[in-house]
């Protein structure tokens, strides 16, 4: 909030025109990009929490001038989709499904939401388009994205039509030295995801971020539900130097539901700023927010959870839990779970805890001749169980678990 509209870096119209031209984009998208670049002068960096004498995340301190190199973007993205579902890169989507893309692109997340979304819209060169036609009950879609450049901007759009269902599993990582021999040191990855869930549709979007630990990562995932629709998010953050991740659902239609499940495990000097937000607009809507995180070494976490119940959101159920486990004395955890309730016909609760490994549990295990370090690791793995249990997709759960185990070794 205190950051003024000073532009961290200069992006010229020509740069943006160049990207659009090389990709042979339609006029509307070219214009959207140009509007976004023009907006850079007017919009602020994302809001971060400020309390007396303290700013929880310093996005303004990033050296965008060095980090952002729009013309060298490179990625290697594998997309696997089942029968009956469209899963393509953005350029193909613009050729094959121009109307659907035009209708939904930027409709869930306004490109001018903040400086980083505008930057992303202006510069994106990769991303995925997923389209699930009416009534299709799809198998899993997997997206494996490798970042191979100084900076990479990705834009993903998921459109699930009436009574369809789909699970999307996304893994974000860096290419090895072979794919990007020239690129190391500080890098910037930006990932915008929009999900439009039609009437009675079900979308599950699971994301596992295991970027190199000198990558600055900005991600905003946002969905809108129509009547009876459900969007479930799973957000796993293991990698990156600094992550600012916002996971948001607008429960527009009546009886819509959402779940946001989050897990993070920070070590060394990693910084995670995780924000889970739900807006209840329709009647009879339900939200469940569950996040668990572990911090070791000098890692730092910031968590904001918002449950916003609108004036007309009769019969709302909304729950939120956040738990942080601190393994090191040098780690820091900030948390702010917020309730904003405008309708009294609501059952809402939230809770948050911060603590360390229970000494009695540890004593019990060591007294059973388990090595102290192993005992601690077992307790950490146990700490994540309530979150892992919420992950319905075996593959994602196993991957997440493997990352947690790897970090403990």
């Amino acid at each position, binding site marked *: 909030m205190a950051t003024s509209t000073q532009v961290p870096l200069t992006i010229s119209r020509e740069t943006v025109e160049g990207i659009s031209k090389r990709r042979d984009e339609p006029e509307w998208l070219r214009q959207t990009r140009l509007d976004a670049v023009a907006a850079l002068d007017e919009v602020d960096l994302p809001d971060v929490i400020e309390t*007396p004498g303290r700013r929880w995340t310093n996005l303004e301190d990033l050296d965008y001038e060095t980090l952002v190199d729009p013309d060298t973007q490179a990625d290697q993205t594998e997309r696997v989709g089942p029968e009956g579902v469209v899963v393509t890169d953005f350029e193909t989507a613009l050729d094959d499904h121009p109307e659907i893309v035009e209708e939904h692109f930027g409709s869930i997340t306004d490109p001018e939401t903040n400086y980083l979304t505008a930057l992303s819209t202006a510069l994106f060169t990769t991303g995925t388009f997923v389209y699930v036609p009416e009534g299709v009950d799809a198998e899993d879609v997997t997206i494996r994205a490798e970042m191979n450049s100084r900076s990479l901007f990705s834009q993903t759009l998921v459109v699930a039509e009436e009574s369809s269902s789909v699970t999307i599993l996304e893994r974000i990582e860096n290419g090895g030295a072979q794919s990007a021999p020239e690129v190391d040191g500080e890098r910037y990855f930006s990932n915008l995801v929009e999900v439009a869930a039609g009437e009675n549709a079900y979308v599950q979007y699971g994301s596992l971020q295991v970027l190199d630990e000198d990558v600055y990562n900005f991600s905003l995932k946002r969905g809108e539900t129509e009547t009876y629709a459900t969007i479930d998010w799973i957000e796993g953050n293991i990698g990156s130097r600094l992550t600012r991740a916002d996971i948001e659902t607008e429960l527009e239609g009546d009886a819509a539901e959402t779940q946001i499940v989050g897990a993070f495990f920070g070590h060394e000097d990693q910084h995670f700023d995780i924000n889970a937000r739900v807006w209840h607009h329709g009647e009879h809507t339900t939200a469940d927010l569950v996040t668990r995180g572990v911090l070791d070494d000098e890692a730092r976490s910031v968590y904001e959870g918002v449950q916003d119940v609108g004036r007309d959101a009769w019969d709302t159920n909304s729950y939120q839990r956040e738990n942080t486990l601190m393994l090191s004395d040098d780690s*820091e955890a900030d948390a*702010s779970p917020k309730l904003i*309730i405008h309708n009294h016909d609501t059952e809402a609760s939230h*809770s*948050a805890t*911060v603590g*360390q490994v229970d000494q009695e549990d540890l004593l019990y295990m060591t007294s059973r001749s388990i090595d102290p370090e192993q005992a601690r690791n077992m307790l950490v793995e146990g700490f994540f169980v309530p979150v892992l249990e919420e992950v319905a997709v075996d593959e994602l759960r196993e991957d997440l678990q493997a990352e947690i185990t790897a970090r403990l070794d």
Partner: protein
Amino acid sequence: MSSEQDELQSTDTEARFDFKKEEKSAFESEKGLDEETIRLISEDKDEPEWMLERRLRALKQFQAMPMPNDWPEAPDLSEVDVDEIVPYIRPDIEARGGADNWEDLPEEIQDTFDKLGIPEAEKNALSGVGAQYESEIVYQNMQERWEDKGVVFCDMDKAVQEHEEILKEYFMTQAVPPSDNKFAALHGAVWSGGSFVYVPEDTTVEMPVQAYFRMNSEGMGQFEHTLIVAEENSEVHYIEGCSAPKYSAFNLHCGGVEVFVKENAHVQYSTVQNWSKNTYNLNTKRAIVEEEGRMEWISGSMGSKATMLYPSSMLKGRGASDNHITIAFAGEGQDIDTGAKVYHNAPETKSTIESKSISKDGGRTNYRGLVHIADGAEGSSTAVECDALMFDNESTSDTMPYMEINESSVDVAHEATVGKIGDEDVFYLQSRGLDDDDAKQMIVSGFIEPITEELPIEYAVELNRLVELEMEGSLG
């Protein structure tokens, strides 16, 4: 930032609000409040030079600081017009605040006094209309008993003259420096009246010390300053204000409270605030708690148009503890934004915060709280519990806790619930012969009981009566 600004900020405590944004504030044209006015106030009170200097310094800070309007969902303060302040604080201007006659008070205020069953003389005194009333005698008696023990209880103006050394040390230097926030700065410039309480070592003051008795002596009491120093092993319970509504034509109440809890001392500070519903109630209250000391803040916020109040405790010594109990009740047109702030700056410190809020007829309540656990405060624990009850769909209930944890060996828990009044509960009570209103009233009484039972009986009775009146919607 200019060097002057740097210098102004130099008295900051860790708890200073860090407003960076330069805002066009409602106070931009501050032609009304100037140095001359401050000098006049100080001269009229025959204050020593150092106090005048502190006032002038605070004025500069007030003028330099932005309004706190970049807070998320903060109450709207745009109607606060500080220009109006001058006639109420300048000693050379005849027209003071309040009404001259009982009949001039707004009808709903007169009505509330009647309904609370407060006697005529007291009514006049409490409402700021009359002069002294008979409790002065009671006060005198208590005074003598305390004096034997070395307890000081006097008004702040007198304290400036008679206890200069203590005041020099404590007055707006450590707990609430004017640089804390814009309204603390305003308070530092124009403060008037209030109480000074000094409790010597190993002394227990059995009776609650009530500011109540003295309210009238300093006119409006809108900028009153309370300073409590509780020396080692002492104990005191201080009660501020009263549940009767206070009316003033000038709509800003901007008090300051500083409490020093020394080693192993125990201070309880209770407030039931019922400002009339045209008032902006913007107070800064802070305690500094030394080793094994204990601070308890008990607050009921019933009145005012908008309240922004976050009593805070700096737990500075090992084993210091804090307990907050807060009730907020917002009816039509009210925005009660209140909560707690606790800094755990030493090992084994402990805090518990219990907040209950009720919103009704379009009112808004918000729990806004901050718990900070500093690096090195190992073995500290904090538990925050917020419950909110909503009556209808026009009302709003927000909960905004902030937790900053820089130490791993801690136990931090926050819990909040929001719900409507249970239809089943109402139905049950109705089936036992209560009508709808009585049933709801009973549920509310039960909801706030954990708090009322912490209050001295006469206060609890008044608070309950007040809630009943609010529930009937019969108060203005």
